[in-house]
C-alpha cells in the first residue's frame, strides 16, 4: 500500500488531535487499518468504536463492511454518529 489521507471529524478529530494526516499504511481493509493505527498512539483506540459508533468513508463512499478492501484508496475518513438537520 501507499500513502493515504486519513480524515477525522467531530469528537474523533478532537480525541486524535488533528483533522487529517497523510500516512503510509500496510493494511488491506478497515479492520486491519484500525488495528495498525493503535501502534501510533493511545488516542487511536477511539476508532475501535467502544465508546460510540464509528463510521467510515473510503474515497467519499460510506463503507459498512470493515473487511472490504481499501486497496488503492486515497482518502479514508472516520467520524461519529451524524447529527444533521
Amino acid at each position, binding site marked *: 500500500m501507499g500513502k493515504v489521507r486519513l480524515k477525522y471529524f*467531530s469528537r474523533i478529530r478532537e480525541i486524535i488531535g488533528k483533522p487529517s494526516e497523510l500516512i503510509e499504511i500496510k493494511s488491506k481493509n478497515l479492520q486491519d487499518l484500525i488495528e495498525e493505527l493503535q501502534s501510533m498512539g493511545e488516542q487511536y483506540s477511539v476508532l475501535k468504536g467502544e465508546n460510540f459508533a464509528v463510521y467510515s468513508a473510503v474515497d467519499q463512499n460510506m463503507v459498512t463492511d470493515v473487511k472490504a478492501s481499501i486497496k488503492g484508496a486515497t482518502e479514508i475518513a472516520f467520524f461519529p454518529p*451524524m447529527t444533521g438537520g
Partner: protein
Amino acid sequence: MDNKIIVRVQEPDFDLNLEMEALKLKTKKAGAVVFFVGKVRDLEDDKLQYLEIESFEELAKRQIEEICDNAANTWDLEYILVKHRFGRLKLNDNIVLVITSSKHRENAYEASRHIMEYLKSNVPFWKKEVANNTENWVENS
C-alpha cells in the same frame, strides 16, 4: 442528477423569498410547496452561546443528492432543494432548508419528512452546543 434537484452545503444563510422565486421560474405545474426550516433553538436550561456545525462537505453533498434522487423516484415531485449550513451559528439562525414541491400536497409533505429523517442520521454533519462555556456534542434525537 435530475435538474429539478438542487443541493448545497454552505456557510451563508439562505433567503426564503429568493428560493420561492427560483422555484416559480422552474415549475408552473406545482400547486403545493413545503419549506422545512431547521433553526438553532435555545437549550432547556442553559443559555446557548452558539452552535458549531462541522461537516464533511463533499460526502454530505453526495449523501444529500442520493436521498433527493431517491425522493424524486418515490414521489411525484416538481422540485427538490436542500441547503444545509455549517460553521458557527447563533440562536435562531437557520441551519437547514428543505423545499419540496408537487402537484398534490401529500407528495411534498411526505418527501420533506423523508429527507429530514435521513438528514438527521445519514449525512455527515455534527453539531456542538456551547453554553456556559462548556461544549457538548449533540446526540441524535
